[in-house]
């Protein structure tokens, strides 16, 4: 008789719902990492997620936790409201770069400056995915999008914003790192960072954010494999991976 050995399953942090993400998009990977971490920490029951506006607007369908859905860019403010009245809950936002770095820049900066004890998962795929691939604050110079058809011209359309570097200058931030989802090794490192970010919150050590370099094959007009290469060859030089802020208290955490 054939003996079956289950080696890969849905994490408990997930509901049994197929995602709406395009083939090859790394949102699914990021979702899974968050779900695995919530399961491993045993906090699914007391977690409240805050979904953004953008491709991950329906994130609330996929996590088996309570969820609220924020207006575009306002997730950190909404998370502040939740966390301040429910300090013993785990509260996280999941935001894209249009949501966090464009319309929601005010909310993210001030939540970080206040040291809100929340965790932010920030997906940087260098464009507005849901509305069809328009230029985002994170779009690379020269990168073609549906609203920078000749390539982002920095003379008229400005320069990309490096969110993690910027947030790491704020005293309220406890943990601020950038990781990438373009290969298995980096996915493992990303998961470790996500775990650390949630541990920071569980210990009340301040604002934690993990920026994840991600793909958008559909709007980039690339195959999934070429998208992963694009992250490695073009996004990583512009958005170097690294730990931009890890407070001394957090350095003591062993996971």
């Amino acid at each position, binding site marked *: 008789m054939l003996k079956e050995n289950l080696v890969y399953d849905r994490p408990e942090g997930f509901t049994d719902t197929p995602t709406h993400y395009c083939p090859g998009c790394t949102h699914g990977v990021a979702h899974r990492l968050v779900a695995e971490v919530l399961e491993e920490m045993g906090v699914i029951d007391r977690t*409240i997620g805050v979904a953004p506006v953008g491709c991950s607007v329906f994130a609330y369908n996929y996590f088996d*936790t309570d*969820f*609220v859905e924020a207006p575009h860019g306002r997730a950190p403010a*909404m998370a502040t*409201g939740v966390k301040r009245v429910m300090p013993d809950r785990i509260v996280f936002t999941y935001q894209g770069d249009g949501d966090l770095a464009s319309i929601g820049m005010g909310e993210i900066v001030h939540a970080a400056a206040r040291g809100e004890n929340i965790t932010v998962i920030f997906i940087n795929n260098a464009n507005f995915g849901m509305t069809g691939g328009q230029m985002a604050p994170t779009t690379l110079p020269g990168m073609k999008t549906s609203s920078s058809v000749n390539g982002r011209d920095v003379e008229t359309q400005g320069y990309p914003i490096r969110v993690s570097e910027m947030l790491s200058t704020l005293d309220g931030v406890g943990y601020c790192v950038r990781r990438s989802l373009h290969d298995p090794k980096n996915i493992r490192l990303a998961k470790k960072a996500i775990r650390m970010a949630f541990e920071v919150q569980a210990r009340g050590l301040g604002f934690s954010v993990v920026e994840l370099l991600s793909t958008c094959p559909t709007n980039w007009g690339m195959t999934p494999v070429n998208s992963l290469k694009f992250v490695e060859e073009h996004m990583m030089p512009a958005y170097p991976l690294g730990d931009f802020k890890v407070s001394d208290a957090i350095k003591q955490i062993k996971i």
Partner: protein
Amino acid sequence: MPKELWKGNEAIAEASVRAGLEAYFGYPITPQTEVLEYLSRRMPELGRAFVQAESELGAINMVYGAACTGVRVMSSSSSPGMSLMMEGVSYIAGTEVPAVLVNVMRGGPGLGNIAPAQADYNQAVHGGGHGDYQPIVLAPASVQEAIDLMGLSFDLAEKYRSICMVILDGCVGQMMEPAQMPEMKPIKRANWDWATDGKMGKRERRILSSIYLDPIEEEKMNLRVLKRWKTIEANEVRYKEYFLDDAEFVIIGFGTAGRVALSAVREARAEGIKVGLLRPITVSPFPFEVIDQLTARVDAFLVTEMNSGQMLEDVRLAVKGRVPVEFYGRMGGVVPFPDEILNEIHRMAKVKLSVDIHPRDAWLERMTHA
């Protein structure tokens, strides 16, 4: 509780605390700032949540988040700040969670000034945010009434999972009057069947959202909220009557404009003119029915507002052209004196009034040719 001297804005803050306010999120703006200042001390002292937000946008979305957990939460602002909050107001309405908002109105549009006005009536009553929704709107005319209505506003917001706005002009916010505070109510967290406060091993997960991607589902939501609104209209209309029993003329005014009108009514009564006052306390739901009934037995109405006649249109809807409706307004932060309204009463008692001219046009003519 004995009467104490309370400033309107601080009284609102303390009354909310005593009604079980668990979280306040706000931003400084004159003439509302004392609410924020007062609560910055009072809330932490009681171990409750207080955040001075980065903007009114931040504040309203913090309110939205806290409201989703089912606690009593509020924000306060003044006209330009309320405009900024309108995004969140629409989302809160679309998510059907209770929240209390206070607007201490000032002169506008734009930056305007910091003097008392009532020009946000339409924004509050007829919906300043996008989409179909109707908030409950209360309009106090004194510090005592503001105190009493704060308690009511939390009850109504929770009962109907609705936004309850309290609109007062800068007069009520800034003036000091003797008033009586209610007893401190203990915080009671209700076990709502909709709140996203974490599963905590007790139930399935919950989602709170204003998204209904399927138009049919959105329409169902719209109908559900509209039906709820009909219940609110049937049960929650509140107003105050003064000298209406034998009144031939009836003044209608809310907040400070109504209060100033009362002084004029008293003077006119002393002169033997049969005039009364109807002061709506809920401007939404609006007291259409009582105005409809009054129309059958009075000679004419006079609407007084500190705006260009915004509530006037709702009064005209109730009166339906059956008797003349006159209008007297001051705008831009100007508060009318009782004498001005008394002059209007004298004019109404003297001249033949017409239903054929729009009351705003006639008033504008008098204002600019005086």
